[in-house]
């Protein structure tokens, strides 16, 4: 049962199994374990990024494709739903239409980019994706009539997903189950389903071909696999998954703007999460997303507390001042790459 659900791709390490179960339970029970808006927001962001980072791992870790356009596809999914909800506030039909349109645009664009540039060298493909993503970001901020420009779009989601909605009259385990929590579970279960779907894809005969292409594209061709076709399909799949992650983020934040979906900053974050977690494992995407987003959201607060506690000492309070949080995040990254070149999951599976 669990074997089928995980497509036979078990964590293969006791520590990793424990970590994965902890992540799953932590996210599944987040509204009850960690009440509060901020904690729930962090949990939802983690869910979305697990999908987003895993879909990037499909490209980078499994197929060996370096793309910088992943946030573009993420943005297309988010904007699809945002634009539709902007026109038809609070409507489920708008969400349906937005998902369909976002998916179609993202996959079609990915297939076109793939067919035109995946037959050439990897570096060239990376440059093309960077150029297309930059162009798209400018386009999104210029077409303000459609996208809200730099300000982005703020819209109303169906009432069931808003705090005004109450699922039960009474509290459940001391928590009022409102639309916010319904929204969270929508994100959580969608993310879980998408993650398991990707786990299935990488363990399918198709997924095995992707790994073969990553290992030795020349040999894969000689075996009869047309690498351009496989790479292009993988690119389309990754883009579709990223767009769905964007949809979830749009439904959670009720706001979509260029900085929260299209920025290259997020692209770098995705890259860091894949590398820290461990490329080509999918579990690494989950571990990387959890660590990175927790660090991003709570490192500053922790450092502020530490800085105050150590107020009397020379120099040290300055080093742990909240303003230095990026420095510490950088150090964390360098240490993790230095000590775990195959990522945390690669290390745990040794």
């Amino acid at each position: 049962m669990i074997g089928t659900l995980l497509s036979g791709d078990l964590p293969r390490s006791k520590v990793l199994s424990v970590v994965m179960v902890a992540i799953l339970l932590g996210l599944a029970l987040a509204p009850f374990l960690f009440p509060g808006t901020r904690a729930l927001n962090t949990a939802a962001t983690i869910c979305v990024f697990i999908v987003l980072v895993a879909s990037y791992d499909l490209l980078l870790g499994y197929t060996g494709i370096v793309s910088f356009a992943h946030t573009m596809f993420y943005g297309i999914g988010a904007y699809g739903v945002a634009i539709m909800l902007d026109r038809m506030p609070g409507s489920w039909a708008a969400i349906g239409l937005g998902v369909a349109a976002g998916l179609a645009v993202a996959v079609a664009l990915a297939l076109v980019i793939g067919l035109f540039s995946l037959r050439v060298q990897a570096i060239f493909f990376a440059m093309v994706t960077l150029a297309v993503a930059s162009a798209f970001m400018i386009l999104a901020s210029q077409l303000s009539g459609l996208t809200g420009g730099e300000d982005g779009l703020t819209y109303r989601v169906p009432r069931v997903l808003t705090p005004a909605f109450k699922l039960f009259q009474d509290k459940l385990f001391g928590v009022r189950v409102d639309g916010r929590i319904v929204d969270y579970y929508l994100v959580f279960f969608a993310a879980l389903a998408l993650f398991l779907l990707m786990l299935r894809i990488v363990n399918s005969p198709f997924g095995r071909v992707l790994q073969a292409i990553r290992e030795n594209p020349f040999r894969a061709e000689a075996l009869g696999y047309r690498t351009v076709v496989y790479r292009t399909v993988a690119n389309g799949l990754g883009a579709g998954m990223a767009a769905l992650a964007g949809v979830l983020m749009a439904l959670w934040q009720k706001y979509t703007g260029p900085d929260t979906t299209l920025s290259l900053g997020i692209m770098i974050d995705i890259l860091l999460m894949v590398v820290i977690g461990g490329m080509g494992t999918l579990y690494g995407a989950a571990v990387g997303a959890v660590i990175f987003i927790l660090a991003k959201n709570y490192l500053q607060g922790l450092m502020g507390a530490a800085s105050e506690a150590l107020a009397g000492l020379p120099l040290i309070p300055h080093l742990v001042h909240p303003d230095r949080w990026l420095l510490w995040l950088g150090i964390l990254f360098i240490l993790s790459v230095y000590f775990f070149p195959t990522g945390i999951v690669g290390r745990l599976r040794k």
Partner: protein
Amino acid sequence: MTTPEPPVLETRDLTIRFGGHVAVDHVSCAFQRGTLTAIVGPNGAGKTTYFNLISGQLPASAGSVTLYGEEITRLGAPQRTKRGIGRAFQLTNLFPNLSVRENVRLAVQSRQNAGFDLFSMAARHEELIEMADHYLARTDLLDRADAVAAELPHGDQRKLEVAVLLALETDVLMFDEPTAGMSVDEVPVILDLIQHIKADETKTVLLVEHKMDVVRSLADRIIVLHNGALVADGVPAEVMALDVVRDAYLGTGSGGGDDDA
């Protein structure tokens, strides 16, 4: 040499130029079913390049390749493999971080056209795994099936290269120095296999080989390439006696030395 049966594979004036250098120069040759043709010649004669033109790793500058009378000159390597031209490489060319079994299983999977199945579990396609194991058994590799390909000793990697080729189940099998760098006691395993394929009489085998004793024992026919051109073609005893062959090839040191590179 007229045979009633049309050739399986034929090259006509097959040529490739790299800048001013003509690496394969108007080579015309037909290969019959059930035969084993050895392609010999000194290093740099264009043997591997000729192979690359036939199996589609390189595009021809001029001339044609036909398989069962159908021109395949413009097709890429994957399409040619699907149509029945299988190739083992001179420099071991595997999926280094995948298991030995997975290397062969991928070939079986390609043969079965199962690559575009996205939603089933590869590990549950037992018939593919069984077929992979069958070819591993034939090449004496079954007990190493779970090892990572890169960790195999050189001789076993050469065997795996052959196992992968067999698993493709193509009509044409091309071996590019299959025993290069193998220890003396490992060579017979590979030679037995090639002998078996030849005895099958449904396959067309092309073999690039430096060891003249191997060529002599296996080949029905030898063609000699020199500076990219076909300079001799005939049964082994005849070809080996030719002056041009002695000068071009045998003179460089015969007696089974493995001068690859």
